[in-house]
């Protein structure tokens, strides 16, 4: 009968999909450490760089890394961490999706007695085991200072922000404020593009239409958005608009080298991803570990881009 055949097909599909997956679940119980990594959104290039570095470091150290991706949803992130707790992993690393919203994961881990390492962004509940990341405000200060050094005082600028309330947005904006960039320039508009390239592009296009030649610079809180704004400027034949951002993703560095992009403040993704795994492993093994690791930012500009491309992060931080 047709119905039975269909059920049979269904069963085969189901079994097949799980057999495919089986390979990844064997090593439990062999004394190998297992670490759960809850990422906030792997479709974000910079976050992907962190998780890739974490995966590589885990392979190097011989620990098993379980990777989950909240796809930008706080609720999913909490569920992901719940799943790790049930699996009784040896340590959990979290890149918080939201400073406030992700906070419950810290108490959940503490209650379950599993060490929690917070990576990259701030979280409201600071009773975590360790932190590996950077001070977001510092990147805003570096970007703001460079803009003030390279764009005339009183120029018209626009600012593209990350998702409101995320630690990157809050910290970087505070950085702009702290170095006085907001008073130094005439700020035409401040809008969020949610770290997204396409949203930033649309925003920049609209600004170029609205403000025309008045617009002198666009300050972006990350490079994905910076690349979007830059594409819009170049498409409109406005290569004179100074654009800068944070993260030092590949195409941003290439654009700095090409001279179209002013500055990309390097947030060391590999340092944070690898570093958080190192710390988590130390905690799980009961060794001494640093409670607060801050990976410094550094601006990549026309002056040091060649050194960076040739020698990596260490070539420009020393």
């Amino acid at each position, binding site marked *: 009968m047709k119905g039975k055949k269909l059920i049979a097909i269904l069963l085969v599909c189901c079994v097949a999909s799980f057999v495919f*997956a089986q390979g990844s*679940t064997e090593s439990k119980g062999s004394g190998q450490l297992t670490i759960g990594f809850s990422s906030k959104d792997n479709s974000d290039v910079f976050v992907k760089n962190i998780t890739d570095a974490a995966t590589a470091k885990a392979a190097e150290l011989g620990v098993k890394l*379980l990777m989950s991706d909240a796809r930008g949803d706080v609720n999913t992130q909490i569920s992901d961490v719940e799943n790790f707790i049930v699996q009784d992993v040896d340590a959990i690393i979290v890149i918080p999706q939201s400073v406030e919203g992700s906070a419950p994961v810290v108490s959940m881990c503490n209650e379950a007695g599993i060490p929690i390492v917070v990576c990259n962004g701030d979280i409201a509940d600071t009773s975590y085991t360790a932190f590996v990341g950077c001070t977001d405000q510092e990147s805003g200060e570096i970007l703001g200072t460079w803009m003030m050094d390279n764009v005339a005082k009183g120029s018209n600028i626009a600012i593209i922000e990350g998702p409101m*309330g995320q630690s990157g947005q809050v910290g970087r904006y505070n950085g702009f404020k702290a170095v006085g960039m907001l008073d130094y320039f005439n700020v035409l508009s401040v809008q969020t593009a949610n770290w997204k390239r396409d949203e930033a592009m649309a925003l920049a296009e609209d600004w170029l239409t609205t403000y025309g030649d008045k617009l002198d610079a666009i300050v972006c809180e990350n490079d994905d958005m910076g690349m979007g704004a830059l594409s819009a400027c170049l498409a409109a034949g406005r290569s004179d608009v100074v654009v800068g951002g944070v993260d030092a993703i590949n195409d941003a560095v290439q654009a700095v080298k090409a001279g179209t992009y002013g500055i990309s403040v390097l947030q060391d993704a590999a340092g944070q991803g690898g570093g958080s795994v190192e710390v988590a492993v130390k905690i799980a093994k009961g060794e001494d570990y640093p409670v607060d690791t801050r990976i410094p930012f550094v601006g990549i500009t026309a002056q040091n881009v060649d050194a960076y491309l040739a020698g990596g992060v260490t070539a420009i931080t020393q």
Partner: protein
Amino acid sequence: MNLNLTRQEFKSILPRFALVAVVLIIVGVMSFLSPVFMTSKNMTNIFRQISINGIIAVGMTFVILLGDIDLSVGAVVGVVSVFCGNLLEQGMNWFAVCLVALGVAVIFGIFNGTLVAYFNFQPFVATLATLTIGRGVALAYSDGRPYIITNPTFKAIGQGYLGKVPIPVVILLSVCVVGFVILNYTTFGRYFFAVGGNKNAARLSGVKTKRVEMSAYIISAICACIVGLILSARISSGQPNAGEGYELDAIAAVAIGGTSMNGGVGSLGGTLLGFIMIGLLSNSMNLLNINSFYQQIVKGCLIIIAVYVDMKSKGDKK
């Protein structure tokens, strides 16, 4: 004659039977593949995780039974979340906050219902507009920033337990029972099948079809409101972006559960199986550490298979 009837009956329960079979297979296979899958902690997790999608799907079933659709539920979740966050921050009593949230959600439901029933907007277009308006209201009201929720009683809605059962699961069960009774044991509930099956015939036989349509959107909005409360309590914050994309998960659950998008045919039992299956699958794939990108592919394939089985069984009946 007798044989025909049983055969027809078999055909009509076939899709449901296939769903139960698939659920059992996943459970069976998973208990072999993952040592933690069958633990009570993981089961608690699964049910807490599906309660969000489940409650919305229950409301969505009423709308889809009419052949309509409600895309605005995710936005209603966001609006409810920021209202709760703000009012709780100002120290309002948690119960009063819930009532205000309910009121706000009902307004959205009435808005949808009015556009569809009285102004003859297509449901897809009307609720798409409401979705956009709702998300805008949430962002404008909160200025894009999240609120922090500290009220312990309110937080219990998302994080507390009744005995050993998480409160969200208790709420989910209550919503399912209430929905089931309304739909199957009241005249009002049977009107949904009548109107969805043939609107004109229903109207000619004295059913107030506009009122039925209106109430479907209000029910859907109330369910979204309940989810907004649970979600905000669970993440301890009022987030304007809360609930983004939840409408699609709910529609997926209803579709997998065998409710026809053309209306008139379907059941809450099917929807229940639909969201259990989605939740089970996503928990399983997380435990097996399957990349989140592939998880989405699997979910999409599942919808196609489920709906195909459903169509086949109904096609044969003719």
